[in-house]
């Protein structure tokens, strides 16, 4: 960062100002508002609000419902992350290896990136539909009655399948580009030293891929926590009470349907702290990654 080429005083201010104003109004103001209102309790009839200190937080900590949602979020996040990373890794390794049709495979495996999560949720909701869904028919063939939207576990299953499907392409793109950036010399040396493809993969390729994989881990956790909102919203069909939901979805339902502004804000702040911790982790890893290359 040594370039500072121009020294006009006003121009940079004018260039920065639009972005700074938008960020101040639409980022810092709401974020501050969330922290502020997490210490207040709204009157249910809309007559102002009372300062209640950390009550909203202790209420959350004691709520068994919140604990249940947090538990499901953890379960959901771990499964979505590992399944989508695992499948994408398998596909990326194979796509890196084959010669014939490499480009076609790449295209066929990445285009789902552009499908919006709620559209994926819509496809899923109908594939798993009670009356017309072929996947439900398939399960019925094996004697299991799949009930999406009614049975908690069945809905969770369908939500995870759809979320993994939607996330495989991102992981595939990054892992493939990570694999392709491994120098040919390294690959050749590994080939001379070790005949077994599996051993080569775990001893050479996988460690070299580790920085990409770690970065993707964070991306996937963020995806499972936030971007899956659309999938969940479509698949629970407006009936979140008896269905599995994630923490972000609860912020939304409590804030907009339950009009519990204080409680919803406290939940927002909890999520903010969570994301902050993830980002700090990511930055520390990034620093290390720069040393690798």
């Amino acid at each position, binding site marked *: 960062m040594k*370039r500072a080429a121009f020294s*006009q005083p006003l121009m940079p201010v004018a260039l920065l100002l639009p972005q700074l104003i938008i960020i101040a109004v639409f980022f810092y103001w709401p974020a501050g508002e969330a922290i502020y209102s997490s210490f207040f309790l709204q009157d249910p009839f809309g007559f102002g609000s009372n300062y209640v200190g950390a009550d909203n937080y202790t209420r959350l900590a004691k709520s068994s419902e919140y604990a249940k949602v947090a538990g499901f979020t953890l379960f959901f996040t771990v499964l979505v992350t590992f399944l989508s990373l695992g499948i994408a890794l398998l596909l990326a390794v194979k796509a890196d290896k*084959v010669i014939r049709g490499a480009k076609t495979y790449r295209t066929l495996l990445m285009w789902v*990136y552009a499908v919006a999560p709620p559209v994926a949720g819509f496809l899923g909701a109908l594939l798993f539909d009670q009356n017309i869904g072929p996947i439900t028919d398939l399960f019925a063939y094996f004697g299991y009655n799949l009930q999406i939207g009614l049975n908690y576990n069945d809905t969770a299953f369908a939500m995870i399948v759809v979320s993994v499907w939607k996330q495989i392409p991102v992981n595939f793109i990054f892992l493939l580009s990570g694999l392709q950036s491994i120098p*040919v010399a390294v690959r050749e040396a590994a080939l001379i030293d070790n005949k077994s493809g599996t051993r080569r993969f775990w001893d050479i390729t996988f460690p070299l891929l580790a920085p990409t994989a770690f970065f993707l881990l964070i991306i996937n956790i963020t995806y499972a926590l936030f971007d899956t909102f659309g999938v969940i919203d479509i698949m629970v069909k407006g009936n979140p009470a008896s269905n599995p939901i994630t923490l972000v979805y609860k912020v939304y339902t409590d804030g907009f349907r339950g009009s519990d502004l204080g409680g919803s804000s406290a939940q927002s702040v909890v999520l903010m702290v969570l994301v902050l911790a993830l980002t700090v982790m990511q930055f520390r890893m990034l620093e290390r990654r720069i040393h690798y290359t």
Partner: protein
Amino acid sequence: MTKITHNKKPIRVSDLADHAILIAGALLMLFPVYLAFTTTSHDNITLAREGLQFGFGDQMGANFYAAMFEKGGFSEQIDGTSMLLNSLILGIGFAFGKIVLSMAAAYAIVYFRLRFATFAFWVIFTTILLPLEVRILPSYEVVTGLGMANTYTGLIVPLLASATGTFFFRQFFLSVPEELVEAARIDGAGPGKFFIDILVPLSRTMIAAIFIIMFVYGWNQYLWPTLITTDESLFTLVRGIKQITQSIYEGNDIPEYGQAWALAIIAMLPPVLIVIFFQSWFVKGLVESEK
């Protein structure tokens, strides 16, 4: 290099297994969308009676026509065309706004001697930490309070309050050789001339890549449009998916499956085609921007 030796040998079992895995993966990705296309080609009665269809029928044109031009919704005023238009406005407006704002900010941070540059940098970059979903309720209140509910401004501008683009352009500008700006200065070019004549042409590919990524991101927005647009004439296609789903599950005796699937396809197709068509730019932009 190993690839060359592979080619000379006859096809091996392990190669076949590799292809089998890749084909299975490709089919897994394609299957739901294939089913979407086959299903839209049947009429609603068939679908309600027999479920999703695996083969093509002859109703595709009719279903797409109904999805695009048949008025629907509470107001009986919206159709696929109006939602498509709104989706385009959101996607293009968002991508365009993002590029203009973030290029300007990154240019100021990288190329100017500025006392509060580090401070501005951190003010902007903190926004990466907190996605909109986390602060959704207060954002809604702020935007509504400013009278921006049910406007294109309220739909697009709050989404611009993040630093992803700025971060990307900053990285890119830092990789531009320093000699260029030295030479430009010696030749007497000011900051405006340097930006337009040298930096923008150099960044062309990057701008295109970022535009594609941001267009897809904007087009696919769901939560924010759901909250901020209650006026149906402002619905985007992705926003409309919720209405479509509800109409299937709460609507008439025979749900309009064919039309619903047609709308889902229309909601999905433009970003997918752009990503496929501009694949190399898109992948480059995605991988580079996340570094």
